[in-house]
């Protein structure tokens, strides 16, 4: 591993603790446990699609997705243990994408009530609704 937040004198933007943490990566046993957790969440997500839980399915699926995303990013990509600059770079891109495309969804009325969604109207009638 070649990760640290120590810079040359005058660029000390990280404490010593961060340096120690940078090398405190999970053990192989922990990686296997993390993979098992990821597998269980995936199985849970798939099971959800077969259960008739109504409107509760979508939020639960999204929660599972976010959990898996952060587990892989934090432990397998070592974001949790790496230098702060890597986190900043990745989170900048991710936040920019989220804000940008949430704006697009709002523009196309994708986040409103189901009856107001253009795509649902289109699928039910075959023609765009005004």
């Amino acid at each position, binding site marked *: *591993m*070649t*990760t*640290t*937040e*120590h*810079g*040359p*004198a*005058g*660029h000390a933007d990280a404490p010593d603790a961060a340096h120690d943490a940078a*090398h405190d*990566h999970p053990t*192989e046993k922990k*990686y*296997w446990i993390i*993979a098992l957790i*990821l*597998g269980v969440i*995936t*199985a849970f*997500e*798939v099971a*959800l*699609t077969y259960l008739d839980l109504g409107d509760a*399915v*979508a939020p639960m*699926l*999204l929660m*599972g*997705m976010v959990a*898996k*995303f952060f587990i*892989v*990013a934090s432990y*397998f*990509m*070592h974001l949790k243990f*790496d*230098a702060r*600059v*890597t986190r900043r*770079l*990745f989170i*900048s*891109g991710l936040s*920019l*994408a*989220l804000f*940008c*495309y949430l704006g*697009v*969804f709002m523009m*196309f009325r*994708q986040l409103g009530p189901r009856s107001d969604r253009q*795509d*649902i109207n*289109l*699928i039910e009638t*075959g023609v765009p609704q005004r």
Partner: protein
Amino acid sequence: MAAVAVEHGSEEVEHQAEASGHAHPPTNTGISNDKVAMWAFLGSECLLFGALISTFFLYRSRAPLGTVKPHDVYDIPFTSVSSFILLMSSLTMVLALSAFNRADSRRAMVWLSATALLGATFLGGQIYEFTVFIREGMTMKTNPASSAFYVLTGFHGTHVGIGVLMLLALVILIRKGRLTPERAETIEIAGLYWHFVDVVWVVVFTVVYLLPL
């Protein structure tokens, strides 16, 4: 005077790094420029895949009546197995890096090959899925929903393909002795790309396949 202090600081960092058994590059961030570049690239990839996923989300129901929509032809159990295979390839990737950091090149090659094999299996599954969908009448040109589906999953598949080639190249380099444990960061950087492809699939699988219309 300040320049001397900076130079002294760099030497001190390198000395500390050597003492702790890690070779820290003398950069302002303390991590190598290659790794910073990979993270910046992955940050930009969030925007690319964000655009493709949003487009699919907006168009997923845009299909004239009577044409086949992606949701009509999905085979969830099959895609779930593919997703599990890709998730497990992230595990074999970190195990490869862990082995290489311990200077266990042989085991690192085994894990890297396993990662490439799992990636290739996922790709094979995707190609099979595409052929089934086309046979069932959903082609790229059938409707906006099918176009958005093929563009998104096709782009992701291309990324997986590039990743598989990258992994095989690493195996060959290690085998030829041109990649030694002192340069383990090369594997770490390739691993970052691989894990990113995995997290993108985590989002694609939920948003494209599992979320109800």
